[in-house]
Structure formats: structure tokens, C-alpha cells
């Protein structure tokens, strides 16, 4: 490293302080934009698989060709006993998913997704700020998410509404059970659910949820259930979550839109970031020509540009991450949360740094095209 590269690089940036701040802000916003769009996608994916992932079970047994949790279809209830007797299965309970009509107290009708839970409430809400989940085992009692209070027209425990023309009582409110569709989740017991979901027979459910023996191999147990229980499909939790996400993401218009928006966010972020950095070099092109004429090697100029890109990029990413973190927290209780995973964050940061390096490459090319003889022509 030439000893003048760093001082020249930093002085060039700091000398014009407003410009420097605007550049960092520009990069931060670009990074935030990309992060937010990706964050929406991640939040959306998490929303799609939240119930599956929070159920705390290892294996899901369902009707063949079930495309997503929400579209589970009927299987006989005695599959629970059949699955329980398979070697390696420690515990098995049922779950029912159905779509019914909810009547808002003001009169309008909306479709809701009923989730009927078995004794242990597996597949139910994971946070209960108000009331208790066990209340769903009382007759006509349901739990809904606090996010859907308005949609459903309920305010507190004990409020009443109608589902398929029958009375329901609110037994509690969950937190963080989102849906990106217009149909909120309504949790109740399997037995209650069967009263409302007319298209299920009394001896039918949608899923058998399975926990395996400690030390058992999930794949082996999955295959064994598939062999021993007929007319069902058996998936591990990860497989089922992936299938549900893929269904919503790739087979519905909503998912494609979210993906395209995320891709655009990434693209626009990358372009703004690269353009902002490239502009700095362009502003100083005459100074680079002077440096070349004075006998500074191209290598030194390359170091100057790279130092600038990486430090501005790094600063922008830090500021952008702070913005993103704030946005994540602020959106946590809204229906459209911004979320991320360590893998996604790391990839995004690496991608952003790559954009910085790419823009340096363009800047450096522009510098190397300079003819230092131009210094004599003012």
C-alpha cells in the first residue's frame, strides 16, 4: 500500500463534508431500501410457515398432494392412532384446517381460516398476551390474533360474533400470528371446529402432528410412517414449511409480486450505491489526472478508489443497518413485518460490498483511460 493512498483517499472525502454526509446517507438509504424489500420477503416467508414452524413437532401427516398448510383436506381421525403405533413415534395428535364464514358485528361477512387444535394445542399460537389458549376447549370459544381485532370486529375477551351462523365467544388473543391473505386465523378445538366447518365429517381431521422418540432419526420415522399408514403424505416440519412457502411464493400471484419487488429493491439499491460511489471519482477526475502526471502509479490510484468505496460503503451499510433494525422493530407488530435471518443479512452485506467493489472497478477504468497529458490543457 502506498503511504499516500489512505490520507489522499480520506481527505478527498472529508474535505467536502456535506457531500460526504450526503454520500453516506445515499448509500445508507440504498442499502436500507434493498434490506427492507428483502426483509419484507423474509417476513412474508416467515408468515407463510409460522404456524408450521412454531408447532414444535417433527413430522406432519396429511392428505396426499396437500399444497400448503392452509389447504389441508380431510383424512380419517383414526390415522392418529395408526401413526402413534409406528415405531419411533413418541406422540401424535390431530389438527384441523377449514375455511368458514365469519360475520362481523356490523353485518359484513368475511372468510376466516379455522385451525382446530387437539388436546396439547400443538399448532396453536405461541404468544398469548390476553387470555389462555386452553379456553378453546370450552364450547364455542375461539382465540384470534390481536392484529385481526378490527377485521373481525372484536375488542376483548368475552366478545361475541357469529361463524357460519353460530355464536362464537372470544376466549383470548394471540400475538404474531399473521396472515398476508384477507382471512384471519381463528383458533379453536378440533371438536368445536367440526361444528363450524360443515364440509368435514365428525371423524375427520386435516393433519396428524408427530413428535419422535428422543434419539430417533426423523427421516427414518417419516419413511416408516409413509410405509405403514396408507393414503397419506408424510413430511418433516422443514419439508412442509418449505412446501407451504413455495406454494404461496411460486404458485400464486402474491408471491411472485413480493419476489419481484424484492429483486427490484436489490437492483435499485445496487444501482444507487454504485452510482453514488462512481460520482465521487468522476468529481475528482481532474485531480486524478494531476496525480498521474505527477508520477503516482495507477496502483496507488486504485488503492485510493478502493479505500473510498469500501469505507463509504461500510459506513453506509452500518447506517442503513441501523435504519433497518429500527424499521424491523417498528414493523414487528404490524401485519407486514420486516424480518431477516443471519444468512440473509450476511449475504446482503456481502452483496453490497461487492457493489462497492464493482463501482470502484468502473471508477478505476475511467481513471486508467485518462491521458495525463490533459493536465497541460487545464
Amino acid at each position, binding site marked *: 500500500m*502506498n*503511504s*499516500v493512498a489512505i*490520507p*489522499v483517499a480520506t*481527505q*478527498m472525502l*472529508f*474535505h*467536502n463534508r456535506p457531500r460526504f454526509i450526503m454520500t453516506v446517507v445515499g448509500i445508507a438509504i440504498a442499502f436500507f431500501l434493498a434490506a427492507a424489500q428483502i426483509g419484507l420477503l423474509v417476513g412474508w416467508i416467515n408468515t407463510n410457515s409460522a404456524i408450521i414452524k412454531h408447532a414444535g413437532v417433527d413430522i406432519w401427516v396429511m392428505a396426499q398432494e396437500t399444497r400448503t398448510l392452509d389447504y389441508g383436506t380431510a383424512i380419517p381421525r383414526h390415522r392418529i392412532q395408526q401413526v402413534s403405533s409406528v415405531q419411533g413415534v413418541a406422540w401424535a395428535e390431530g389438527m384441523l384446517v377449514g375455511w368458514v364464514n365469519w360475520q362481523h358485528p356490523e353485518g359484513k361477512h368475511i372468510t376466516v381460516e379455522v385451525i382446530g387444535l387437539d388436546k396439547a394445542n400443538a399448532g396453536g399460537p405461541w404468544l398469548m398476551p390476553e387470555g389462555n389458549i386452553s379456553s378453546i376447549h370450552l364450547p364455542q370459544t375461539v382465540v384470534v390474533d390481536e392484529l385481526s381485532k378490527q377485521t373481525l370486529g372484536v375488542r376483548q375477551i368475552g366478545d361475541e360474533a357469529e361463524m357460519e351462523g353460530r355464536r362464537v365467544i372470544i376466549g383470548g388473543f394471540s400475538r404474531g400470528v399473521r396472515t398476508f391473505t384477507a382471512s384471519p386465523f381463528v383458533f379453536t378445538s378440533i371438536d368445536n371446529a367440526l361444528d363450524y366447518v360443515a364440509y368435514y365429517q365428525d371423524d375427520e381431521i386435516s393433519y396428524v402432528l408427530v413428535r419422535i422418540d428422543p434419539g430417533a432419526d426423523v427421516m427414518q420415522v417419516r419413511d416408516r410412517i409413509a410405509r405403514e399408514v396408507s393414503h397419506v403424505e408424510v413430511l418433516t416440519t422443514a419439508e412442509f414449511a418449505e412446501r407451504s412457502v413455495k406454494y404461496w411464493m411460486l404458485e400464486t400471484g402474491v408471491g411472485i409480486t413480493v419476489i419481484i419487488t424484492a429483486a427490484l429493491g436489490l437492483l435499485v439499491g445496487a444501482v444507487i450505491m454504485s452510482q453514488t460511489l462512481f460520482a465521487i471519482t468522476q468529481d475528482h477526475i*481532474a*485531480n486524478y489526472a*494531476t*496525480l*498521474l*502526471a*505527477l*508520477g*503516482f*502509479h*495507477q496502483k*496507488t490510484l486504485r488503492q485510493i478508489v478502493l479505500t473510498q468505496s469500501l469505507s463509504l460503503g461500510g459506513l453506509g451499510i452500518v447506517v442503513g443497518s441501523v435504519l433497518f433494525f429500527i424499521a424491523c422493530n417498528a414493523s414487528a407488530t404490524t401485519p407486514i413485518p420486516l424480518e431477516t435471518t443471519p444468512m440473509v443479512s450476511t449475504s446482503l452485506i456481502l452483496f453490497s460490498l461487492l457493489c462497492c467493489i464493482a463501482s470502484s472497478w468502473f471508477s478505476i477504468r475511467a481513471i486508467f483511460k485518462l*491521458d*495525463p*497529458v490533459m*493536465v*497541460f*490543457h*487545464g
Partner: protein
Amino acid sequence: MKSVMACQGISKSYGAGDILERVLKRVDLELFEGQASVLVGPSGSGKTTLLSILGCLLAPSEGQLLIADQTVNFSDKSSLTEVRRKKLGFIFQHAQLLPFLTIEENLAIVGRNAGMEDMDIKQRLDGLLQRLELKVMRYKYPAQLSGGQRQRVAIARALLHRPSIVLADEPTAALDWNTGKTVVELLLEQARLEKAVLVVVTHDTRMLPLFDRILTIADGLLSEQRQTAAVENTFYTQP
């Protein structure tokens, strides 16, 4: 006298075919240690072109440039940079200091780039700032200086790394006569002190008597005028 730089049959053409323009025609020139030359000629005659070739910034179409008896290889960019870095100092019409560095930093980076020791740079800097009466400007930025002060800084920058050749293209064109004359006098004085070869392009014929040699370009040909003793005595006493 030691020969520092020599042009042997240097020609330069721009363009090609019908629009070929021969700017320099077989220029021969030898420059000796401590010698100050002025380069004059009508506008468009090729002064800047010749200076660019001497400065290893522009490749001649034909002929050779020798610096310290070494032929300059114009096809190797990196070795050209190397020559400029070590052996050449430049002064441009508009000083072209880096606006984001202080005067001191503008000078210091040249020394560091040339590989000088920090201690040496500091002493050199002190000395040059003193001699060019720039001490109070040391921590200022170029934008805070007058045109004449900036050109004095440019002189210091051109000399700091002890180059054997200093080239200046119309260093006073942007200055008024008195300021310009002072700048040229300082430049001559410092270059002589450093025993550097100095070539200055100017349009101002009033400056000519200050120099040891007067080189004229016209129609692509370089010729030399003898400095008359009378002129020498009136304007300048050679050491």
C-alpha cells in the same frame, strides 16, 4: 557540463491520412544541468506538445528521448510514471494543486510518493516554504491562496523531490505581470539552486532575458536564439 536530457530527431504528428498534422519535425535538443531555457513560439506551434514529450506524458511519433543517458521507453506506461515520479517536476498554468489537501500535504505527498524519508520531506518542506515565503500558508487550503501564492506552492511541489528536470507550461499566464515576473524569478532562482534543468513555456517576451537559453518553435522546427550579453546584464546576472 553534464547533459541531463536530450531529444534526438523527435517528430510528432496528430491524426492520420489526409488530416495528418505534423506538429514537430525532427527536433534535436540537448539540455544541461542547471540550465534554464525558455520555449517560445506562436500559438499552436507545438510548445505544449514538446513539453509533454519531455515530460514523458506524450509519446513522440519518431525519435528518441534520453534522460540521464537512458532512452525513455514510451511504450511502457509504468516506466514512464517511474521517470516522472523520480526525475521530473511539473508546473502547470493553473497550479493544479489538490483542493482537498493543505499546502503542506500537497507537497508532502509528492515527497512520499517519490520514496523520500519523512525527516527529509520535513526539512525539504521547511526549506522550500521558507525560500518561497509560504510559511504562513502551510496549513491553508489552495482555495485560500491567491493565484501567485498557488504558483509558488506549485514551484515548491515541482522541486520537493529534487527532480533533475522541471517543466513549466505558461506558469504565469493566469497572473498579472508583476506577480508573474516574481514567480518566474523565484522559479529560476530555486531551479538554479537545485541545479535542475528548467524549461519554461511562455508567451511573454519580456521574460526572455531572464533565461540562459531561448528556444523558438515555428513551423514544427526548433531553433535557438543567442542570449545577448547586453540583455543578460540588464535583466539578470548569471551565477
